[in-house]
């Protein structure tokens, strides 16, 4: 117990910092119309390339400055967060459900279901993921739902591999045999005995995958293959910022910081959650 509580104490800051940032970003994204100081699409060439608030020439109400078309950067980041979070939640959840279910079946049942599923995973992993995503979006057409679908189709293998390995080791535990002795069927054992024990890994992976989905969406936006160019996304803001890096560094730097913080928070949050669950296993 002592060690567990020590570990818990050490994890707390990580959990709270990562969770805090994600919560802040999420709330901002949900209430974007109320929070954003400006209209993210409103162009005003009189206000182009305003610097952030602490530099000379800043205008009140444009905290992080404006881009080359005079659009408020902070507002664009907040609205861009909406798309980032929608993609993160929808794509990661779909990939998670598909991959975990297949992984659980392959790992627990073994035999031919495992052989088929593992073969598919091997083939899938042979494609370079970003190239695969670009290819898929090119086929499916741009738009929010194709981006989500593409990420789910590519990244389910991530869940499948990990959950399969965990389910396999769980299947060897005596409590699985014990459940057979108690009269449970295979499906019942899988859901009652195996699933609860792989759940911490599923949760950690899910959180990590949300971060990955944010990056993939940003990459697709960056190469102009995501959502329509009107709606701001973090990737498209970065792409625009790149063009004016010498005149207005902030248009590139702030969205990059936002992206990195979010991705990092997702992965740290997942790890911390898993560790939090884990003392039960000791």
């Amino acid at each position: 117990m002592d060690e567990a509580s020590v570990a818990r104490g050490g994890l707390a800051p990580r959990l709270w910092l990562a969770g805090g940032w994600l919560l802040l970003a999420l709330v901002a994204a949900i209430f974007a119309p109320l929070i954003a100081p400006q209209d993210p699409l409103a162009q005003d060439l009189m206000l182009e390339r305003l610097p952030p608030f602490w530099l000379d020439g800043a205008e009140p109400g444009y905290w992080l400055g404006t881009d080359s078309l005079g659009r408020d950067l902070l507002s664009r980041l907040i609205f861009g967060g909406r798309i980032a979070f929608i993609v993160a939640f929808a794509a990661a959840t779909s990939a998670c459900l598909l991959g975990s279910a297949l992984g659980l079946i392959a790992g627990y049942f073994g035999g031919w279901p495992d052989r088929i599923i593992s073969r598919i995973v091997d083939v899938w992993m042979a494609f370079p993921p970003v190239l695969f995503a670009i290819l898929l979006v090119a086929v499916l057409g741009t738009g929010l739902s194709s981006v989500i679908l593409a990420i789910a189709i590519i990244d389910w293998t991530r869940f499948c591999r990990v959950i399969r390995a965990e389910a396999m080791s769980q299947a060897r535990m005596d409590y699985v045999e014990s459940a057979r002795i108690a009269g449970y069927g295979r499906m019942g054992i899988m859901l009652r005995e195996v699933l609860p024990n792989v759940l911490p890994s599923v949760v950690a992976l899910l959180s990590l995958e949300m971060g990955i989905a944010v990056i993939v969406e940003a990459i697709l936006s960056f190469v102009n293959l995501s959502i329509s160019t009107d709606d701001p996304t973090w990737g498209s803001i970065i792409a625009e910022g790149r063009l004016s890096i010498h005149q207005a560094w902030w248009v590139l730097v702030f969205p990059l910081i936002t992206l990195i913080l979010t991705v990092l928070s997702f992965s740290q949050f997942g790890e911390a959650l898993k560790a939090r669950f884990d003392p039960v296993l000791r």
Partner: protein
Amino acid sequence: MAEPLFSVRGLKVALPDMTRKPLIGRAPLAEILKGLDFDLPKGSVTGIVGESGSGKSTLGRALVRLIEPSAGSISFEGRDISRLSEAELRPLRRDLQMIFQDPMSSLNPRHTIFNIIAAPLRQNGLGDRLKERVAEALQRVGLPQSFASRYRHELSGGQRQRVGIARALALSPKFVLADEIVSGLDVSTQAQILTLLEKLAAEMGLTVAFISHDLSVIRRLCQQVIVMREGRIVEASATDALFENPKETYTRDLLAAIPLPEIDPDWLRPTPRQAGVDHSIIKL
């Protein structure tokens, strides 16, 4: 003798031998049990003893039908259960229970003790009065009621094994397989668990197959003993007869190899027969 609860004839079990599995394709089958015949009388405790590789655990798992025999019959109360499917076995599970060797791995870390003991009850139509039945099961093995809400990691080794016993006996089964249930415990705890099992088996009139590598424990607990070696029965008889007058050399060797807690300066001296290397035991 009482009529047998189990009657086993010509029992053979073959399992895939993963050490000889080729890179591609299936592992070849290795015969673990090579034709066993024996009876387990109703209400008796039978010790099954053997060294590693003797097939004693495989035999136990075949009795409770966790594995399917490749040949022979296992009749339980006169009915051959050796070929029943998982679904056909389900109604029989209530009477065929098992206590596991490692109480750590046999208790799911994510379930409370209550849920662990309640699982077989729920699954076998005894889901009514669940609280009462679990309370009764805990009391039977001498655990306080407050343990119902605890998890595996909050219990000591001996307490975990008590939970394992409580789970197996919650259904008041006719047969219990006890597979090396004290081999992972300290001697002081081991004595507690064994006296508990001894008492409960007598009270509930259980038929028990007690698998162990320890003949000392078997002598105390069992009425009859089956000595196994390399998938065959070497000797089977009533306990006192076996210990006082072992018929087979192997049984005598086993007994002579037990280091009793008493001074015996001759014990480590090679006996004439054992001088040099006993090639029957050393395998390369």
